[in-house]
């Protein structure tokens, strides 16, 4: 699992590795406020997992509030590698002279983790002749080994000390957090003689995530959003506990608002689309049933092209397949009486209006 830059940098900070002052902005207001709080100029950086953000236009400099506003808008609207950012990192721009590439990664042939470093940062590090590779024991890198990396890079004095501390800290991070890769590229020597991680990339060992609950909330949505999209549902993972399912994007949006207004928290947005038949309803309810943060399901259907009896049959069939989270449903439209009859002997809580169904779902528990 790959982390976003800001998450990777939070880890670096936690491990005592200097990073430029920065703040995360989810909207224009936050971006401007962050800008006001820090020295200028700044850079705004798209928080996507895809590489090549700079060339794609996902990293823009700004020297005044107008430029921040403009850059923020541009970055939020820019898709990079099929991915749009959900936030932007506003970061103090760091003038610097030289760059170093530094990473900790697994060498399969050597059956060990290694430090890789070279004196020029940038993307083509693999080809550089001055590349230093140092095997790391399972206990971690020693001070002497970290210093020998620095020496092989011809660093001396204060620079050597600072760099080898960073090597040691990055290695400890990679070891303790169980990273497949922990990379700083570039690590910059600033004009004032300090060292700062300008960009960072961290990939975690998926098999080790069970030991790191601190990461469990980072990308919870991928699996479900992927499955939903494959099945052709419009689906958005949210953070609450009420799984919201309906037919028609507007109706589901409106249901989310009702849930929020009633003090509840939706766990997802799931639009069945038009004309959903039994199998699709089954698939949708099953999906929300699997969603770990949903502990109940709210179904809001207004039948038009969708037949309410198909919806009812789908829900019934899912219930017959096994234990379910509580379902609160409102089913209106043609044949609604027949639909209600189909669900009469099931544990589904049927309500005549969306407000009542929402109220019941929010109040339950």
């Amino acid at each position, binding site marked *: 699992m790959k982390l976003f830059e800001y998450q990777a940098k939070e880890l670096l900070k936690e491990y005592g590795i200097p990073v430029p002052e920065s703040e995360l902005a*989810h*909207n*224009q207001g936050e971006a401007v406020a962050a800008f006001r709080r820090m020295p200028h100029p700044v850079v705004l950086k798209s928080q996507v997992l895809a590489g090549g953000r700079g060339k794609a236009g996902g990293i823009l400099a700004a020297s005044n509030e107008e430029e921040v506003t403009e850059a*923020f*808008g541009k970055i*939020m*609207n820019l898709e990079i590698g099929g991915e*749009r*950012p*959900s936030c932007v990192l506003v970061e103090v721009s760091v003038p610097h002279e030289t760059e170093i590439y530094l990473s900790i990664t697994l060498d399969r042939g050597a059956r060990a983790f290694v430090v890789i470093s070279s004196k020029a940062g940038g993307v083509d590090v693999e080809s550089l002749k001055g590349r230093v590779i140092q095997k790391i024991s399972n206990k971690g890198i020693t001070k002497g080994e970290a210093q020998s990396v620095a020496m092989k890079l011809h660093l001396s004095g204060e620079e050597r000390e600072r760099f080898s501390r960073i090597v040691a800290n990055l290695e400890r991070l990679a070891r303790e957090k169980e990273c497949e890769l922990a990379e700083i590229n570039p690590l910059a020597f600033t004009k004032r003689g300090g060292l700062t991680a300008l960009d960072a990339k961290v990939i975690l060992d998926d098999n080790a995530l069970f030991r790191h609950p601190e990461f469990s909330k980072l990308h919870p949505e991928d699996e479900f959003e992927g499955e939903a999209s494959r099945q052709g549902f*419009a689906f*958005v993972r*949210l953070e609450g506990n009420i799984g919201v399912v*309906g*037919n*028609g*994007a*507007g*109706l*589901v*949006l*409106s249901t*989310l*608002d*009702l*849930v*929020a*207004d009633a003090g509840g928290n*939706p766990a997802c*947005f799931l*639009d069945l689309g*038009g*004309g959903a038949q039994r199998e699709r309803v089954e698939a949708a309810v099953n999906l929300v049933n699997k969603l770990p943060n949903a502990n109940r399901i709210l179904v809001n259907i*207004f*039948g*038009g*092209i*969708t037949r309410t009896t198909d919806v009812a049959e789908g829900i019934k069939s899912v219930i017959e397949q096994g234990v379910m989270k509580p379902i609160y449903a409102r089913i*209106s*439209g*043609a044949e609604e009486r027949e639909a209600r009859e189909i669900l009469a002997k099931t544990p589904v809580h049927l309500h005549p209006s*969306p*407000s009542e169904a929402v109220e019941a779902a929010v109040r339950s528990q």
Partner: protein
Amino acid sequence: MILPRRGEAVIVQGITGRYGSLHTKLMLQYGTRIAAGVTPGKGGESVEGVPVFNTVKEAVSKSRARSSILFVPAQFFYGAAEEAVLAGVKLLVAITEHIPVRDTLKMLELAKKHSATIIGPNTPGVIIPSQGVKLGIMPATSFKPGRVALFSRSGTLMYEVANELSSNGFGQSLALGVGGDPINCTTLNECIDLAQGLNETQEVVIVGEIGGDAEERLAKHILDRGFSKRVVGYIAGRHAPREKRMGHAGAIIYGDYGTAESKINALKEAGAEVAMTPMEIPLLLRKRRDRRERT
């Protein structure tokens, strides 16, 4: 836009398909006079007692219909729409989704040239309860005759709002969905212009949603041109997260663009009242009517 009246003949294109035949039955039940259907190659058959013809020309000349509702698959849609316009049809209700965008643009151009109107594509259609006319797939029981014109960007949410209106004594002079595709052949602005001319219409309800700027454009249109009737708006998605595509292609908020706030503010600046929930719409209407009756 000339909407059909009670007893006026309309035709169904794609009448023999799964949805075409089902909704022919439901529209007939509502009272719509489906006088003919069209499915190439099925001429001579009948669906729910409605005769089927091979061409729109035949169907129109037998029925004298000026309106058509189309359940034709996306691949054949442009041809069917062109055939209808050339046969003299003046109102096309395009239920079909997934129509190529260039077909929609060509349809729109052709329709303008022949003074025809297209509702949709990807629309639930239009319903005029007082006339017993339904050209669409909406559930009939939610709509009652009355004085509110209801225009919606969303299909099922239109049903929901109609249901709230009807059950609170606010019938509809008409209800129309503009459709969920990138191009709406009939825009919210054109809907408002239509409502201006409908004597039986006292108030207009606009059902919008996050994303895009159709509501902002509508607000500007009202401010620029003026609009003499009361407008109540409702925008779905106040609590939607940003940067997430909420079902419809355009229902996504970037930064401050496309937010419910922006739409609500625009509508308010144009003099509309805005409800926070579908249930609040009839409450606002009641207040206004009460106030009006007081003044």
